[in-house]
C-alpha cells in the first residue's frame, strides 16, 4: 500500500514544529553527573514521569538534564524547560512557571497543558532537592 501521491506531499504533525523539534531532537537529554539536585515527579492524571537533574555553581544553574517517560509533549516540555532554566539563578528558577514552557513551545493542545505543569514541578522538585542538600545555599548572596 503506497500513499505517495501529491496529496500526501505536505506533512501533518500532531504538535507544532517547535514541539515536534524538541520531541525529536530533545535538548539536555540525560542525567547531570554528580548532580546538585534531582527532581522526579509523576502526573497523577496520565502517568507520565519526569526526572530533572541540575548542576548549580555559585547559585546559578549551570546544567540541567532531563529524562521523561511520557508523550511527545511531555518530552518536549522537559526539553524546553531545561533549556529555559539553564543559566538562571536558583532564586530566579524558583519562580519558573509552566507558562514559559507553553510560550516557548509556541503553544500546546489544551489537553497537554499538564505536561508543562509537570516540567515546572520537576524543576521545582530538583531545586528543592538542591536546597535540601545545600542548606548553606539558601543564605548565599546571588551574585
Amino acid at each position, binding site marked *: 500500500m503506497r500513499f505517495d501521491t501529491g496529496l500526501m506531499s505536505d506533512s501533518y504533525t500532531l504538535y507544532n514544529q517547535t514541539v515536534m523539534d524538541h520531541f525529536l531532537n530533545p535538548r539536555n*537529554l540525560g542525567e547531570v553527573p554528580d548532580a546538585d539536585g534531582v527532581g522526579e515527579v509523576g502526573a497523577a492524571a496520565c502517568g*507520565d*514521569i519526569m*526526572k530533572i537533574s541540575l548542576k548549580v555553581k555559585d547559585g546559578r544553574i549551570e546544567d540541567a538534564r532531563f529524562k521523561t517517560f511520557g508523550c511527545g509533549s511531555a518530552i518536549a516540555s522537559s526539553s524546553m524547560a531545561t533549556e529555559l532554566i539553564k543559566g538562571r539563578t536558583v532564586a530566579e528558577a524558583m519562580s519558573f512557571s509552566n507558562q514559559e514552557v507553553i510560550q516557548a513551545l509556541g503553544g500546546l493542545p489544551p489537553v497537554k497543558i499538564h505536561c508543562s505543569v509537570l516540567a515546572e514541578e520537576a524543576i521545582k522538585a530538583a531545586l528543592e532537592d538542591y536546597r535540601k542538600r545545600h542548606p548553606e545555599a539558601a543564605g548565599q548572596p546571588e551574585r
Partner: protein
Amino acid sequence: MRRVYLDHLAATPVLPEVLAAMQPCFLEAFGNPSSLHQHGLRARDALARARAQIAALINAESPEEIFFTSGGTEAANLAIKGVAYANQRRGHHLVVSAIEHPSVLGSVEFLEKQAFTATRVGVDSQGWVDPEAVRAALTDQTILIAVHHVNHDLGAIEPVAAVGRIAAQRGIPLFVDATASGGWLPIDVQAMGASLLSLSPHRFYGPKGVGVLYRHRRARLVSILHGGVQEGGRRAGTENVPAIVGAGVAAEIARRELPERIAHTAKLQARLWEGVQHRISYVKLNGPPPGAQRISTTLNLSTEFIEGEGQLLLCDLHGIAVASGSSCVSKSLKISHVLAAIGLDHALAQGNLILSLGKDNTSEEIDYFVTTFAQVVEKLRGMSPMWADFQRGVIDSVIQPSGRGTSFAAHASALAGKPAAARPS
C-alpha cells in the same frame, strides 16, 4: 518516504470497485429514495441491492432484516436504545460486557439516566467474556444482552454463539457488535443466535458514513432518530445512497475474498509478532495469541519503560501508521477501558501500541515495521528515566521480573502522590 499503514481498525481505503459503484450516485443517479419518480425509484433499487449484499455477508434470512445507519456508532446506539425503548414494558435491565466499545457503553450509560439498569460483565486477562457469567447476570427484567464479536483493542474473539444459546433459552435478544470483525471473520447471524448485529463497512474497504444494523424480524426495535419513515420506519433521514451502495459492494467482495484475506493477514500477524519478539525486549502481547481465538488482523503490544504516544509519533515519522491505547492519546487522559478491564498493569497500558493489518500489507512492510519499531523503542528508552532505573535495578520489569527493585506502578504512584489508575474512574 516509505508508507506502511497498520491502522486498518481505524479506517480502510475504499476498494476501486466500491468507488466505481458509488460514482454514479453522485452525479446521474442522485435521486432521493423517497421520491416516486425515476430518480427516486432507481435509488430505491440500489438500496435493495445493497441490502441483499449485506444480508448475504452475514447470512441474514432476508434483506428486510438489514437497516442502514450512519455508522457503527449509530448502529450500536440504535440497537441498545432502540431495543430498550421497544421493550421497556417488559423490563429495564441490560447485560453488557465490560469491554464493549464506548458507543455501546455510552448508550447504556445514557439509558441508566432514564430508569434503566445495567450489569457489566467483566472479562478475564485475555479479554474473554464467560458465557456463564452472562447467564448469571440475567434477571427476569433483562431485555437485552450485548457482547461484541471481537474486541477492537485486544482482537479477542468472544464466545458469542455460546452467549447466543443462553439468550435464546431465556428469550432475550442478543446484540453483537461486529464492527471489528465484519469483513474479516465469517459471520452467520443465525448460527450465532444474534437478534441484532452491527457492521462498519469502512473497516472492510467500504465507505465512511454508513453503518449496518441487522435485526431479526422478531426482535422489537424502535427508531432513535425521529422523522420520516425511511428504513421501514426504524431510521429516519434521507438515505446516504452512495455510501450504502458502496457498503453493499464492499460486503460482496469481502464475502468472496474472506478466506484469502484471513490467510494473508494471519501470515503477516505471525511474522509481525515473531519479529517483534525477536528484536525487542520486554514486550508483551495483550489478548489471545495468534490463532483461532484471535482475529488475524490485529496485534496489541505493550512495550515496557516507554509510553505509547511517543511510539506512535516516531513510527509516523518513519511513515508507519499505528494506534495506541495509552492514556496520553486519549482526550480523557485515561488508558483504554479495555486494557483496564483485563487488569493490565498501568506501566504496560501506558506502553501500548495497536497494530491492525489489511489485505494489502506485505511481508516487506512487516519487516520494515519491525526494524523501525526496534529503533523507536531504543530511542524512547534512551529518554526514559524508567529504563535507566530498570538498568540500575531500582525498578523491576512486569513482563520478565528479575526480582530486583520495586514495581513501576508503585514507583509511579509514589511520585504522583496517588495510585496510578489501573482502572478508569
